[in-house]
């Protein structure tokens, strides 16, 4: 038993390392490169990561051209008042507040998407999508 657990733990860890390496590689792409911290901050903003990922997968299926963490992060940052600066400088609480405000604005501006019948703000759907993509191996 002990051995199997150890092996499994190792495999998980290895995947984890692999994932974080993949992230870094995104940063090397020539187009707009939101720093790894920006993607990280956004993807981690939602508490219930699993649920977010489920919604996020639905979004990605419907909007395939946004199916990249880089693209999603860039679109999200665009909507945040203060942009990348505010995102990087702010505390976790402040980041959430900024996102919350974006979401409220989305509803005011009717920037909405309908996923499986549910009406979401574009920002929150993108946030979920980012969470979903971050979880995936690629």
């Amino acid at each position, binding site marked *: 038993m002990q051995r199997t657990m150890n092996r499994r733990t190792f495999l998980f860890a290895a995947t984890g390392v692999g994932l974080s390496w993949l992230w870094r590689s995104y940063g090397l792409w020539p187009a707009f490169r939101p720093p790894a911290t920006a993607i990280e901050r956004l993807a981690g903003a939602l508490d219930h990561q699993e649920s977010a990922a489920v919604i996020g997968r639905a979004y990605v299926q419907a909007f395939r051209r946004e199916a990249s963490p880089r693209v999603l992060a860039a679109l999200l940052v665009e909507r945040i008042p203060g942009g990348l600066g505010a995102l990087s400088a702010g505390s976790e609480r402040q980041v959430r507040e900024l996102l919350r405000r974006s979401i*409220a604005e989305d509803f005011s501006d009717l920037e909405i998407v309908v996923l499986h019948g549910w*009406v979401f703000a574009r920002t929150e759907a993108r946030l979920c999508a980012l969470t979903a993509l971050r979880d995936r191996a690629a």
Partner: protein
Amino acid sequence: MFADARSVPRDTRLETDVCIIGGGPAGITLAREFIGSPLRVSVLESGGLEYDQETQELYEGGSIGLPYPNLSGPRLRFFGGTSNHWGGICRPFDEADFEAREGIPFTGWPIRKADVDPFYARAVPIVRLHSGDWALDDWSPDHTPVPLQLDPDRIETRVTQVVDERLRSFGKNYEDELRRAANVTVYLHANAMGVQTDESAQTATTVPVLTPEGNAFQVAAKVFVLGAGAIENVRLLLVSNDRRPAGLGNQHDLVGRFFLEHPRFFAARIAPFGPAPNLAFYESHSIGDAMIRGYLASSKSFQLAEGLLDLQLRVELDYGEPPEDAGDFARHVVTLGKDLESWQRLAMPGTPIPVPYLDVIRKVLDSPEDTYGYIRGRVNKIGITTRIEPAPNPDSRVLLVEERDELGMRRVALDWRLSEIDKRNVRQTLELFGAEIARAGIGRLRIVYDQDEGESGWPDDMGGGEHLMGTTRMSNDPKHGVVDRDCRVHGMTNLFVAGSSLFPTAGGATPTLMLVALALRLADHLKLKVLA
């Protein structure tokens, strides 16, 4: 006074000034306006004072378009007409309902709200309401339920007043008064078989009447009014084809077209994120003498901006029915436990036998349904059903069929149709509503209606409100309507129509108050202009 048509001698020719066909809300309202005047009025009512199956069967008719119940279902064929089973919900049309809508053909009335307002005021006591106030501010005094705080430029709350159940039947309300009226005679069991005209086919001369026993006679009048409902008015015009083969008022093939309903179906659910909103305003509740019920709808400014018609969003609260998955026993237990918890907190402490506080008892006796909701403290589900104001569609129509009823008169069938713009209306308005619900922090909306599903793109549970309208629509142009702004049938000098068949559009409100107001307007017109 009342008379039984079955005892009128065969082949009699009754002379009268005004002959009204139909003893429903329109016919009764019209007739009452002549009480005490020097004019003689005859009302021809097919049924008796009570429901009877044989007479009701004369109303039967099938449906060949979108699914619709048998035509004898929504209507009642005895004195008082369909008011013998209506829901009592009243609200006047809004100003925008009378305006033509850009991009939506066949909208616009030949009259404006200002033309109808004086008659609305007179209609209020006739339908047995207490108040002519309809503004939201009039109905939110202290300590009464409040409307949702949404952006009124997007989703507005509208007020309807509900007539007391015991006072809804026009027949019961006004039977005595009409009985005492010397110059008004209501003929019961009198079936109008059409309208006969002179040779020019421009002046109505007589109405042939047939009773179930086969007794036939004639009613001659100076003025004739069809007030038999949107389906029957069509039937009467179309079967009156002795001199005009297409029927009366049908020179441009418009009689029966533009049939309108207020289709309704379950469309969405709200999942509240925080404490459930207090939605008591959207259930029937009493304020003073009046019974109020609010409803949500897209605002007129949104409709105009997006080129849409009206959409009502009716809230249906589910306070705690057990979950649909009947096998999940544990959840039933938890639900019951929560209910008992909620009642416990209202019990006086320290009493061996649990009793609620006196205030709670009082509130429960006062308004049991509301209080029940408050005590529950939570809503399991918030359902939304939509009621659509459909775009006028000439292909949605009532037409004659070959089959004849027991009296030998041809029956009608309904070919009910909706349009693509109606689908767009539902989709766009629900998305707007979802955004508003979310913006207000209430929760998220899930749209259940899928317009790609099924053959017609409309849900299986779609029904009508039993609001039958539009089939002899009003327009100043005979090419676009059957009657003019004075309710006179185009091409006829003395034939008029009353009732919801006049409506060119369905509006965002229930039809009864409007049709009573229009009947009053017609009565004034007849008294002051036509018969003066």
